[in-house]
């Protein structure tokens, strides 16, 4: 499969602290790559650096061959990176309709699929029901759906999902997982950060495990799932 997103020798700092050191990751087009690791491993920092919210101090980030490092977040979004941030970060004073309307951007690249307001409402029927509701007054699950929909209508070539299941009820997690699976089936390239290990292993085509900002393991999800010693060593799962 061709490469959608490539990180080469990526170093990201929080002030003087090196949060990500020498990361080399390749995300294949149309596949889900799961970024796993304990708290503080550098997963969210990596996503922020790709989206331009944290400056990469060293290394390269390529989106279908176009260098992203040093660009502003708005430019990176226009090139085709959609970020669903941790904690949703929706705009509380805007309605669902306003969220989708301001975020919508027709695709600039030759895309097989086009996400517009109607298509994301089909993917998340609850958003259609809540069109005129202020996002701040919606439940956590609905806000998560809105955050994903908001990123989708920018028509990204790569979708970055940061903890989409965080703090959600099991039934809502299943709904969100179903939507991500549908996006994967539609051929969207996804880089997923998720603490819910069964969910990540179910959705991912490739897993990359980080520890203290470095890649410590990579491979197919089934290998990780079948090796309790590996899971215990890198993810603290017994």
């Amino acid at each position, binding site marked *: 499969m061709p490469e959608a997103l490539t990180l080469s020798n990526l170093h990201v700092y929080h002030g003087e602290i090196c949060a990500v050191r020498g990361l080399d990751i390749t995300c294949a087009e149309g596949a889900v790559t799961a970024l796993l690791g304990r708290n503080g491993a550098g997963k969210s920092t990596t996503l922020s650096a790709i989206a331009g*919210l944290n400056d990469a101090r060293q290394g390269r980030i390529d989106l279908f061959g176009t260098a992203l490092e040093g660009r502003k977040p708005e430019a990176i979004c226009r090139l085709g990176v959609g970020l669903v941030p941790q904690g949703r970060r929706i705009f509380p004073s*805007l309605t669902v309709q306003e969220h989708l309307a301001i*975020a919508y951007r027709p695709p600039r690249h030759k895309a097989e699929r086009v996400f517009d307001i109607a298509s994301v409402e089909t993917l998340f029927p609850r958003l259609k029901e809540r069109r005129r509701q202020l996002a701040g007054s919606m439940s956590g699950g609905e806000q998560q759906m809105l955050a994903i929909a*908001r990123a989708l209508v920018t028509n990204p070539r790569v979708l970055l999902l940061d903890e989409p299941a965080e703090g959600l009820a099991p039934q809502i997690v299943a709904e969100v997982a179903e939507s991500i699976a549908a996006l994967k089936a539609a051929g969207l390239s996804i880089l997923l950060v998720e603490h819910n290990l069964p969910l990540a292993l179910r959705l991912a085509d490739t897993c990359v495990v980080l520890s203290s900002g470095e890649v410590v393991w990579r491979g197919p999800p089934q290998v990780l799932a079948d090796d309790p010693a590996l899971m215990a060593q890198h993810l603290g799962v017994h």
Partner: protein
Amino acid sequence: MSARVLPFAVALAAMAMVPLFSTSPFYVNLTSQVAIAAIGALGLNVLVGHAGLNSLGFAVFPGLTAYLVAWLSTVGGIDPVAAALFALGGTMMVSALFALVALRTTGLGFVMITMALCQIVWGAAYRWTSVTGGDNGLSGVPRPGGAWLPLEKPEYFLWLCLIVLALALIQLGRFFDSPLGVALRGTRDQPRRMGAVGYDVWRIRFVAWMLAAAWGAAAGLLYAWYHQFVSPHMMAVTASAEVLLMVVAGGAGTLAGPLIGAALVVLLKNLASIWIDRWVMLLGFTFVVIVLLMPDGIVPGFSRLTAWLKRLRPTPAPKLVPRERADG
């Protein structure tokens, strides 16, 4: 006429009819002051209520325009309308330069930098005596018009102020509903995320800044024509704080809030001071009550109160229809 427009139309019509019912020009002039203050407060509301940028130096926009129009039409001897156009243009240019400095910051930094910029202009007005008249200010600012439009008459000047206020309400109402207005609220809620959905946050804030400056300048122009005098006092920190109080008291982020806040402050200042020597205390006490009872301001506070009263209203009990007795 939509239900949203009706209250504004009624308020403006009531203000326009003050000269018909008042025998004294005092109340007509007072209404003009409310209208001018409301235009300024509407301008500041763009920054405070919609962009989330709290400014303590808003008086710089009306101050610059007032000084420019006063100087051009008195010392410069230019026609008042031409002087007004130059003053508005000049204010917008200086505001754009100030934006380059002020919009580098947010939060407390923005409060401090806007106050500092205003203090620089205030200092220039206070110390550059040969041009600005120093503490004595510039007097004898002529109003435009003539026999065809006697703006010297209080009622005509009031109607001019109300036309400008109506334009401000229409323009800002449309702007807040536009995609750019919605995006501006997005930058207030989550500035970093607006960048991540493809928006240049600085540019959106720049538009908001210039819009605030434009309506502040309009208020400054009317202020100079109304008082026919300008002094550094109109750019003092207290002047900026007063406009901020109008916005906060009325309800930041609402269209009606600045109008109500302006009316409250101007009326308290002018009416309460007639009967009460320590009227500033009354003003302070009023704001303490507003902040305690309606922390979001009068307009959102009343909206919540109305919603609460609606919930209290007992729902009518279902009518009981007696069943026909089987034996009956």
